[in-house]
């Protein structure tokens, strides 16, 4: 009887705590970008994301020290503790690579839980390709989305315009297992606009999951304007 009691209590505890398994992620990042006008840029720093705070904090160290806070669909640029500017950037938190990775939704980009409809799936050369169609009311703005998976991990995503032109490609590579979270340490972005192409490589290093030793950036508070 005592064994049953212990089992029940343990089971309850496991169930309760498993809900909060992965809530924080931080990493060093660098973004190398080549723009369509031939110019190049490099941005480096550290990024913090807390699932419960629902904000992404970029502590940028190069080229200039500053903080970018993405919260409530707005990106704030903070320099020396003062909000220098703010811009509407859309509700991106849900579909950030950090949120999707922590929630275990990265393999399908979280698209399964959206009104996008699966049109077809094919398997070829070790890749699983799935094609998703946007809801009718968005079909004038957005075409289909193709997602490829390798070894059950998200590998690539191709986004089409309503005219069936490729408007963006994204690749997720060099996955590593960080305390049970599969995270791509390299993300390639290609965006196409009016015949020109932007290329970007984002690299993540020193990825840490559930670092509760510091809160400074995870619950970063927006300074008074």
């Amino acid at each position, binding site marked *: 009887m005592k064994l049953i009691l212990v089992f029940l209590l343990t089971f309850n505890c496991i169930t309760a705590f498993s809900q909060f398994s992965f809530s924080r992620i931080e990493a060093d990042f660098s973004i190398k970008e080549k723009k369509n006008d031939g110019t190049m840029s490099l941005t480096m720093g550290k990024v913090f994301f807390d699932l419960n705070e629902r904000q992404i904090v970029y502590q940028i160290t190069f080229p200039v020290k500053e903080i970018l806070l993405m919260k409530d669909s707005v990106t704030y*640029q903070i320099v020396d503790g003062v909000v220098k500017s703010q811009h509407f950037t859309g509700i991106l938190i849900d579909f950030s690579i950090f949120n999707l990775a922590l929630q275990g939704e990265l393999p399908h980009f979280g698209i399964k839980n959206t009104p*996008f409809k699966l049109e077809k799936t094919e398997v070829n050369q070790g890749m699983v390709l799935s094609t998703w169609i946007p809801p009718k009311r968005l079909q004038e703005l957005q075409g289909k989305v193709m997602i490829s998976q390798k070894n059950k991990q998200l590998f690539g995503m191709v986004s089409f315009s309503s005219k069936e032109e490729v408007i963006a490609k994204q690749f997720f590579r060099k996955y590593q297992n960080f305390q049970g979270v599969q995270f791509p340490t390299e993300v390639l972005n290609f*965006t196409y606009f009016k015949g020109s192409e932007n290329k970007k490589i984002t690299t993540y290093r020193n990825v840490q999951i559930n670092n509760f030793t510091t809160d400074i950036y995870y619950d970063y508070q927006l300074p008074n304007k």
Partner: protein
Amino acid sequence: MIHKMKTILLLVLSLLYFNITALSNDLFVIDENELQNEFAELTTLETQILQTPEMAVEDVQLSLNTQSPMYIIATQKDGLSNFDRGSFAWGFCCCPVGIFVVLSKDDDERHKNAELHFVAGAVASTVTFCCSLYVIGVVLSATSI
């Protein structure tokens, strides 16, 4: 004759299928050499900064030719304000499709789902809690007897 026609049709359809599949796969091909060559300079700079974290923009500026396409990075003294901020955000978030996916989510539907999940979760946890209490009660009474 009909048999031949069927064979040809089958052959054409097969070729068409393989062609489509090949086209789909081509979309996910990356030209590694081209990528490495294009980003060679930036990768070198990235390595330098990783080795010398204190490296400032001015240091980079000194080491660059003003004609270099990378010179731009040394002139961003106003930080990211001159950068394409939207583009910066895409580096972290998954593609423009993210916006469309978010837009396509009906807010009302999301709220309804959230409420439904909350109620379901509350009911489930209450039921579990009551069951646990009942079992604990039974166990305790059995052991006391």
